[in-house]
């Protein structure tokens, strides 16, 4: 592993301050090193970043569109602003759209973001809800995709980010798209090895251990 001392560093301007980071860092890496908090949902430090949720969106001077900080490399002399009105407006809309379609009652981090960015959770109310039956098809965990924000983490840990088991994929199209097994088989009939690493990285209550699920039902 290369050590930090022999890795070249770059400098960017972040919210008006000059900050340094190892070359190859993303904007998010550089910001976190500098103690600047950029909100994220799909990003997980142990997994491949995919810029799915776009909550980490930031303004890069000279770029036409907002940039997802979790995947865009920080480049020398880049000027980045993480809290402009344009950025915050985008984040509000992302969160409002999520709130209108997904059951977020077991997603405390997302709820905190809604408070932080002054979100009107009812702004798009009345539209199509993402509703799926709770799937309880194995002894270890329960899947409630009504609570799924489609962050992609579970599919990734099941694939090349950790387990190389490839039990999960995307199913459906558009509003109906959801995390699924191949041919919609029950988990015991798939290649699943029940490591539960998907449960471990789920940012909401969509994936939950069965012990916890059963105890909640009893209460």
């Amino acid at each position, binding site marked *: *592993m290369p050590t930090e001392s022999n890795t070249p560093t770059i400098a960017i301007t972040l919210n008006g301050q000059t900050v340094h980071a190892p070359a190859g860092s993303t904007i998010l890496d550089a910001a976190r090193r500098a103690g600047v908090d950029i909100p994220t949902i799909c990003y*997980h*430090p*142990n997994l491949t970043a995919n810029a799915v949720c776009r909550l980490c969106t930031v303004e890069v001077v000279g770029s036409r569109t907002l940039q997802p900080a979790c995947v865009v490399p920080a480049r020398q002399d880049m000027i980045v602003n993480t809290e402009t009105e344009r950025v915050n407006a985008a984040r509000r809309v992302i969160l409002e759209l999520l709130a209108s379609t997904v059951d977020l009652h077991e997603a405390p981090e997302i709820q905190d973001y809604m408070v932080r960015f002054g979100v009107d959770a009812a702004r798009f109310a009345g539209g199509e809800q993402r509703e799926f039956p709770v799937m309880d098809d*194995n*002894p*270890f*965990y329960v899947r409630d995709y009504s609570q799924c924000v489609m962050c992609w983490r579970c599919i990734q840990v099941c694939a*090349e980010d*950790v*387990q*190389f088991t490839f039990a999960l994929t995307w199913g459906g199209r558009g509003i109906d798209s959801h995390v699924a097994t191949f041919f919609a088989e029950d988990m*015991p*009939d798939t*290649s*699943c*090895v*029940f*490591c*539960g*690493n998907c*449960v*471990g*990285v789920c940012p909401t209550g969509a994936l939950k*251990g*069965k*012990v*916890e699920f059963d*105890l*909640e039902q009893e209460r």
Partner: protein
Amino acid sequence: MKADKVVRSTCPFCGVGCQLLLSVRDERIFRVEAPFDAAPNFGRLCVKGRFGADFVVHPSRLTAPLIRRERQQPGKRTAATGPDDWREATWDEALDVVAERLLDLCARYGPDSITANACAKATNEDNYLLQKFLRQIIGTNNIDHCARLCHAGSVSGLQLAIGSSAMSNSIAEMEHLECFIVIGSNTAETHPVIATFLKQAVHQNGATLIVVDPRQTEMTRHADLWLRHQPGTDTALFNAMAHVIVKEDLYNRAFVAARTEGFSQYVESLEDKTPEWAEAITGVPADDIRRAARSYATAGAAAMYWGMGISQSTHGTDNTLTLTNLALMCGHLGRPGTGLNPLRGQNNVQGCSDAGGLPNVYTAYQPVDDDDVRHKFEETWLAPLPGKPGLTVTEMVDGILTGQVRGWYVMGENPLMSEPNLRHAQHAVEQLEFFVAQDIFFNETNVYADVILPAASFAEKDGTFTNSDRRVQRCRAAVPSPGIARPDWEIISDLARRCVGRLGKSPSAHFTQNADHLIEQWSYAHASDVWEEMRALTPDFYGITYERLEREGGVHWPCPTPEHPGTPYLFAEEFPSGRGKFWPVDYGSDSEQPDEDYPFILSTGRVLYHWHGGTMTRVSALDAIWPECTVEMHPNDAARLGLETGDWVELSSRRGAITARLLVTGRSPEGTIFIPFHFAEAAANVLTDNRVDERAKIPDYKVCGVRIARSTAPAGRAGADTLLTDRGTIKDPVVA
């Protein structure tokens, strides 16, 4: 659900030593997660670690000391499985009975009439105290544990070659491997989290993986090269690789000259071990042997990882020596990403050995027959200590049958599932005069006991575990024990104080100090007090303290001083034995070979969802996903015999017979049958052979002769009315 508290601990299953976060509400663990920023698992777990901890709340947990109602006589000892066979007792009564009976045997037959099994699932502190109890108070070195049945072949080989038997390199190095060989290890099922790092090394970092295994494990799917040899022919294969490396001049001259001895004699022994010679024995194409040899030898850094396939053999020591020879000639030792790495099975099998749970050594392999070492322990323990090494677990069985052994103390092990040739072992147990067991559940062994002492599970006690890469990590109490169960270290201490009290009054007292001093020494207030005593006697652990573990999460021993950072990889400068030694090994086998009467080779092993004798996993959610024993047979063999998946078959060897259902799969080669050993109702070890490797005393669980015949469902067998393939996730992983 909101947690009342979240407790960091270490997984109770395999030797990876995954760090856990136990979420507790109303004194119940409702969620198990892993910290994403902590070695060795960095947020990863497997099914057992994440979903298998519910055994701690199973209603069949032992909650109070139990005493057999009917006094057992040697030769007529029986298994007590009925509720009326036992009565609950107070700790005072039960421990007084144990003290009385052990000391009585000691007085009548001498200290060597008592033997004990330490426990590779108990903490370092628990095991340290059990071996101290045996050595100091009973006065015998008769203590051993199930490491004898798993990596003894690796240990004896590594000791002969380099003088150290632990895994040489750390789990953290795995992702950055350049080339590695996985031998006789079903890593994805037995060390699942390590397997994830190995798979990433291949797919994300371009490492070359060579798998050596008769069985088609998941790791073969990720391999550049899979050498599928006939079971038991390992030494021929590795000798031929060494032959290629010498003939093609691919060995590391500088390393051989500077760090090893015996090379020229060894090279002479390789002269006739050509790849073609090995192909005839192993069935592996000679060119594949050449490719494997070149890949390993020419890599800048290359490592070996192995499991039971190497060790559990009548020639387990020889198997290991052929691996150490290769590593020494290529210089693949003493640097990151190199090494000789036996993957340890139990979560604390490394620690149990480190804590002195072996018949020939105290803590950290300090020999009992070294006078200076023994005097050091005598000074601290205030008693003269025996200098003669004690019995191994495989010798204990025979010791009972010859009358040498009369009393047995088993802490947390289940030998009547794990010993080979179970009927023979059971016959021995029946001859015992006194048998005390300490456990969290009834199991197939402790139902023969006179007294059962109920212990706390991993989730109910403090202590330390040492994982496969020598990392000492904390185990922390998260929930209370059921009933009046107590931590093992506390039970042993209480028993020791009672024994000292009795011995102190008798004329045979052999302590060098007044009994009061010993009772005071045995009055530990917390597991950390035990660790403090242990590290003071053990230079390799001296730098590790509870306070430091709190701060750093874990430390790799050797760690001689508080300032020392610990040692993730060994042998950078030299081997404990000085120079690494080459050992010429000739091909040959003492294993029971298939013949006309028993035409198939039987190989035993594990499935992902269960743990060893099943004591913990058959009483957890894990049992639902793989609820029964499956007999794996190759499609060609099945077709020849007219058998199909789901057929009931009787499998028999010269030692016994079991009945289970067939799973036709290409995982095992033609002529070889594989069964897991977790299922008491079809216990694999009824069939296995108890002949052992002369040097390691390890039995042969991978090769013996069996025959197979169509049968019918045994009366009352659970689940027999459901199709095999409808039970849990049982399926043929090769075709599926």
